[in-house]
């Protein structure tokens, strides 16, 4: 009994705690930094792991002296629209590739995946040209349109795997029952793939929320920046790092993603394991 307990401690809980520590420490660091004054931050004699004189100045500075509210709104706007756009496209694409089996569906599936493999650091140059031509440079719409370029391949592949796990007979039965292909899709496939769709949605939302490179290159007006870009470009002035507000902003910006995750976590886990229990 106790031997088993010790074994469990060493093999399971110990690694888990080490892992958790590494994972959560940055958040702790952000949290304490958010409540420290500059004087405290730069005083090397104090123990850096604790707050000694809590202050709200950082929070005030973030909201008063920067456009943090505005950036958060922008990020939401872009992330939600890009997610909806990508999900709609991926749902149809994944279903068509997986089930309609039209001529060339296999190669198309693979080429979509290759599209995903091209790094944004290369892609942003040609994409910039396109954005110029469409006259949406320095507008949030550029991001809404660009994010699906990496979200759609990702979501499509995730959903293809999920659709594959839905028994074909179920759809065939519905078709014999009198349903058209579209109705089978809405009434049978989508409800059954809901956990997978949620996973794809959460992923898409998180990826767009955290996206940095495109947001940095395509947006230059301060009022149109997204939170990750806004924080860094406006709170790192020259070589002066405003650590306090920077960390406060980072902490607050990760809240929505954390909320989305915790809200959908059950579905999310079910979606990842691809488990379609009948």
């Amino acid at each position, binding site marked *: 009994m106790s031997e088993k307990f010790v074994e469990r401690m060493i093999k399971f809980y110990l690694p888990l705690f080490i892992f958790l520590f590494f994972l959560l420490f940055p958040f702790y660091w952000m949290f304490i930094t958010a409540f420290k004054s500059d004087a405290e931050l730069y005083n090397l004699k104090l123990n850096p792991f604790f707050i000694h004189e809590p202050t709200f100045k950082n929070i005030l500075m973030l909201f008063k002296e920067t456009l943090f509210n505005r950036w958060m709104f922008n990020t939401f706007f872009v992330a939600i629209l890009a997610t909806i756009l990508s999900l709609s496209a991926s749902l149809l694409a994944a279903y068509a590739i997986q089930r309609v089996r039209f001529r060339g569906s296999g190669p198309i599936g693979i080429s979509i995946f290759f599209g995903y493999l091209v790094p944004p650091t290369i892609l942003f140059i040609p994409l910039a040209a396109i954005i110029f031509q469409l006259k949406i440079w320095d507008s949030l719409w550029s991001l809404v349109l660009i994010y699906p370029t990496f979200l759609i391949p990702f979501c499509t592949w995730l959903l293809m795997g999920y659709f594959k796990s839905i028994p074909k*007979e*179920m759809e065939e039965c519905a078709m014999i*029952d*009198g*349903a*058209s292909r579209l109705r089978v899709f809405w009434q*049978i496939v989508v409800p*059954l793939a809901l956990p997978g769709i949620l996973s794809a949605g959460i992923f898409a939302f998180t990826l767009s929320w955290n996206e940095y490179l495109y947001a940095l290159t395509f947006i230059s007006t301060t009022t149109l920046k997204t939170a990750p870009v806004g924080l860094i470009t406006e709170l790192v002035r020259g070589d002066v790092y405003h650590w306090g507000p920077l960390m406060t902003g980072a902490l607050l910006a990760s809240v929505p993603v954390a909320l989305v995750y915790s809200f959908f976590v059950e579905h999310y886990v079910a979606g990842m394991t691809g488990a379609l*229990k*009948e």
Partner: protein
Amino acid sequence: MAKVVMEKLNKHFGEVKAVRDFDLEIPDKEFVVLVGPSGCGKTTTLRMVAGLEDITSGNIYIDDKVVNQLPPKDRDIAMVFQNYALYPHMTVYQNMAFGLTLRKFPKAEIKQRVKEAAEILNIGELLERKPKALSGGQRQRVAVGRAIVRKPKVFLFDEPLSNLDAKLRVQMRVELKKLHDRLQTTIIYVTHDQVEAMTMGDCIVVMKDGLKQQVGAPLELYFRPANKFVAGFIGSPAMNFMEGELLSEQGGLFLQTMGFKLKIPEDKAAKLKSYPEKRVIFGIRPEDLPEAPAAIPNETIEVVVEVLEPLGSEVYLDVKVGETSLIARAEPTTKAKPHFKLYLQPVLENMRFFSIRDEKALF
């Protein structure tokens, strides 16, 4: 009310010829069973009738109308799948009502029909449950219920009982048969289990490697198999086969094989006379190999018992003649013991002869 006709039906999956030149005419209200070993093309044939699989060549008629190009929903058929394919996110009621709702039946009629079907199948109390909360047998009933509410012209069943335990399978066999009597609808039923085929079908179609082997009533297939494959496939335990030589001697025609010699009855001998070859395959069913009290020349064979399989009402004897194994049926009172000698007296009137060349029945 529907006659189903298949004409020179072919289905190729690339190199695989799943169904070859399949002809079949199914009269209205008939219960037809497609039976054959795994991979012989039964499911493929059924799916072509349902419209779920494109036809490589040939025609399918339902009620004298070619349906080759008709989508499944317009063929007025219902299909029960092996894994039931119930919609997991809908209740039993919604599952059964789905097809009717799509066809825009009035609410009251849908309710009426579902209730009726639920009563027939004894699933009235389950209507509000989700499929997850049902046992295998209950799911099976719901799947059948979903098919019958639509009152289609033809029912297609693809091994609907294979996921049930043995006892339930026997019970559902009877129920499906009763259901057919009651609904009087054409049924095409696929199974690989010959017992199921024999007990349920008005008419059985035996298939092998995509080819139709024989069509006929259960007992016709049993007593007059068209070839060695059908003879061995229908009936359990299977028919015994041996190769032998025909000897025309004084006193008639004899069959010489592995150390014993049997006199062939006059009527069969007359039919065999015109057969040009000397070597044949002959088959005899276990129940046509009764024990004999003592050796009779040209009528009994001497065997050594290997294993006894007592079933209660009968005992199967696994015996050996030389190197060949045979199965014989004996009365429960048999005195046979393993490793002892025994005489069997074949009922020669019931023996079947097959050509060695193409394994077809000789007459």
